[in-house]
């Protein structure tokens, strides 16, 4: 297995920037709507073909992460454009996409990316709680016995921005979560006014 994390490369950085900017714009949109701020775009032939942002609270569905939203958008637009296409055509077309996402895909999304055949992913910050591309589990490169192609991950693109977006969210309160058992520290409260 030749896969591994690589440091951000300058030529990648220049190429990535417009796509990552769009991903951050989507993440900001999620933040404005009270969701965990994560956004992503699917890129094919240097064109953005699908966008996704985190929507679990809005949809009552914990699986509606940005990556899943983007793949869903790709699938429905592909179907609209090619009503007669076979499943193999759809899978092949999807597997040619590259994912740009603000945060390391979680374990579920890493699995979803493997199932959709996507083979390259750029992300900003790593995710110590749920990351499925090396942080918790190596779901991106794990040799499952089902012929899924591995997912190459390149990390560290605009990581500070991704982290600061997340910090903005976690200093707020997730009104849709159950009442927490631990009390929040009062010291974090003043930030609420700054960004509201």
């Amino acid at each position, binding site marked *: 297995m030749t896969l591994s994390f690589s440091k951000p490369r300058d030529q990648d950085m220049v190429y990535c920037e417009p796509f990552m900017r769009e991903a951050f714009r989507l993440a900001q949109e999620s933040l404005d709507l009270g969701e965990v701020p994560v956004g992503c775009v699917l890129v094919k032939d240097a064109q953005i073909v699908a966008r996704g942002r985190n929507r679990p609270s809005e949809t009552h569905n914990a699986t509606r992460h940005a990556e899943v939203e983007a793949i869903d958008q790709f699938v429905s637009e592909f179907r609209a454009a090619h009503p007669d296409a076979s499943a193999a055509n759809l899978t092949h077309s999807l597997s040619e996409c590259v994912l740009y996402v603000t945060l390391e895909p979680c374990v*579920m999304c890493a699995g979803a990316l493997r199932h959709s055949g996507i083979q390259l992913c750029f992300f900003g910050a790593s995710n110590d709680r749920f990351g499925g591309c090396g942080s918790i589990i190596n779901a991106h490169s794990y040799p499952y016995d089902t012929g899924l192609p591995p997912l190459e991950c390149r990390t560290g693109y605009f990581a500070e921005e991704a982290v600061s977006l997340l910090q903005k969210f976690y200093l707020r309160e997730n009104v*849709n979560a159950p009442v927490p058992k631990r009390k929040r520290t009062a010291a974090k409260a003043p930030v609420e006014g700054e960004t509201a």
Partner: protein
Amino acid sequence: MQTVRGWTITRVDPEPLTRSLQTIPLWSIVAEASASSGLLRLSALQQQCFSHLRRVRRLDRSPGTSAAPPARPMTQILLCQPTDPADRAAPSPPPPPPPPQAVDVPQPDPLAETPDIVALFRQCVRAAYPPADDGHPAESPAEDALIRRHVRLVNVPRHAPVTLEQYRDWTQTWPLVFHSPRKGLVARAELDAHQAARALGLLEAIATSPDRGPVSALPDVVLSPDGSFLLEDPAGLVDLPPTNKPPGSANAAILVDPLALDGTGALVAGALDRSRAAGPHFHPLGHAVIACLDAKARRDIRLLGPRRRALGEPVSPSAPATPATSATSALDPAPAPTAALGGLQLTKSKAAAIQSSHLCNGLDLYVLDEPCIMCAMALAHSRIRKIVFIRRRPGAGALVSHHRLFELPRMNHHYEVYVATRDPPPDDVQ
């Protein structure tokens, strides 16, 4: 293990519950009890990895002597982890033969450790055995002898005990701290085997009949063309006549509310696998579990409307939203789904009941195939209570075949996992 009406249902025990004692060596120092508080301040043991170990052990007799208990009580204090000999930078000269001692660990020379650790030993020895005014100066052969005599490796349990039996057994090796195990490790509520057998029968019937015959007759059921369905009013689980044909290769999943209808259990939603479907229903991520979670979410949206709240809205952290008020606020900004309810009158109690169940809190999932990594994590994100599956998938399963995702300690939610097997009918035995 429980056997009910042809089904044998076995809980998959998390590995920490079943493991036997494993030990690791740590450096320790033997000193008089009066010196132990000073030595504890010097101890450099990482708190995260060794929070299950008490730092001090009282010694009935000084190790190395088989004589009567010493006049003053002795203690043994954990200091730090030894460096792997392979990692040590410079090979040290061969150590002098250690004094013969009755110890349970082969004792390497403490002075062959890395300079940092040897410095720690010297600090400890000076604290525990303060030199007399005309006694040994620092780094003298006398101090080295003291280190060789009192600093030793001791084998301690590597893991925190999670059952009382493990604690009683392992604490003989070294005194331990015992906390009640984290959620999900020990079953909080026993799986109702009769309910599970009914749900498994229903699951098989749904998987074998392409027109979803068993559910299409239920009241309030909403069928989707892709094979998923949801129930606005959860329907009770009923005994179905056993299907004689085995379920096909297609996967199916159902969500069951185990406490609904006075504990008999109720069907909430279900779905068939779409990832291997041909034609317009194919979706690369349309695994049965994901489709089932989607159906449950569609049900919540039908009843409540989407949750949408701009961040500027003030939230009073002191007063947590009561179910009734938060249900209303969730309904307010969503005109479309309210209209889609088609005259369905949402009673306050119903809204409260749904609002109180965040995602799939308290629900059980029954599925034919062992969930893959995507589905297993989706279920953790959805806060599912228990998972019962029938067929192991050695290639891609993420619960018992690979990863054992349900017992990863760093996960924020832990669910229980059961494997159900159909006992062969009496005819097949002959």
